[in-house]
């Protein structure tokens, strides 16, 4: 944990300075997670602020300081999910977002060809964001938390409040769906 349990207790009892310290400790990590979850850098800070506002108003519901991190992740996932739903309503994702060119570029990257580092990163981000648009928000969030954020199944259990087996099934299905999107992009570029 990035903060001491005593600090969480203080924040729970209404200490604004303690809450401030908590936000300062976690904001960078949470913003990073949000940016990977939603894929829209311009809205990351806004969603991040929403997470901490929700944290402020629900701290008294936290059972124990030990479960703080999974709980903060849950708030983050919920805020990201709300954002994705809102933005989906605003702007329906189109299947033509991944071009054949992007697929071949990303493929060559995966094959190990080196280009300028920043451009590479930009292309990978572009490609994965486009690929994620072809699966549901639930799949995107789950896969990002597991495969990109590196959360363990135990941690995910606490975030999603479901048992390990159910989680494994959901993960397997989500992986199959994104793999299918990847394969169809690779073969005919029609994604």
């Amino acid at each position, binding site marked *: 944990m990035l903060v001491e349990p005593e600090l969480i207790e203080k924040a729970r009892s209404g200490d604004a300075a303690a809450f*401030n310290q908590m*936000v*300062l400790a976690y*904001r*960078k*990590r949470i*913003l*990073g997670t*949000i*940016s*990977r979850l939603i894929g829209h*850098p311009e809205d*990351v*800070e806004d969603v*991040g*602020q*929403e997470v*901490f*506002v929700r944290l*402020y*108003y629900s701290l008294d519901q936290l059972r124990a300081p030990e479960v703080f991190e999974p709980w903060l992740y849950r708030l983050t996932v919920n805020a990201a999910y709300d954002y994705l739903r809102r933005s989906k309503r605003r702007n329906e994702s189109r299947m033509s977002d991944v071009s054949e060119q992007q697929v071949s570029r*990303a*493929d060559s*990257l*995966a094959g190990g060809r080196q280009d300028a580092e920043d451009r*590479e*990163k*930009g292309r*990978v*981000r572009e*490609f*994965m964001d486009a*690929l994620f648009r072809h699966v549901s928000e639930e799949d995107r969030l789950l*896969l990002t938390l597991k*495969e*990109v*954020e*590196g959360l363990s199944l135990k941690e995910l259990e606490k975030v999603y409040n479901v048992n390990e087996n159910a989680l494994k099934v959901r993960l397997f299905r989500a*992986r199959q769906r*994104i*793999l299918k999107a*990847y*394969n169809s992009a*690779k073969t005919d570029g029609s994604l």
Partner: protein
Amino acid sequence: MENDETRLDEFFQRYRAACPDIEPGPNFMPGVWQKIEARHNFWFVFGRLARTTAAASAALCLLLLLLNLVAPPQSRLSAFSYMDALMADHTAESLYYTEAIRNATSEDQGSPALQQ
């Protein structure tokens, strides 16, 4: 297929490296507190409104209760005894039946078959 799985895992790792943790802007913390205050104000106003409504409802209930207690309960019945009320009710019932009988008789007398 296995190759694709490996490649996908590789993409996930590259994606992780391509999306580093974001450094928050200088307005991040003030923004958080501003939103907290705004929401706090909303709940404060909402709570005050709810409390005022509850207090007004309670006062109205008390007032109605008091009025009910202050107004003499016998005043409406003082003019009548129980027997009077019963009689009035009975009279009304008798009137209803006698009226009906009277009407029926007058109709019979008015009919052409009976006139012949």
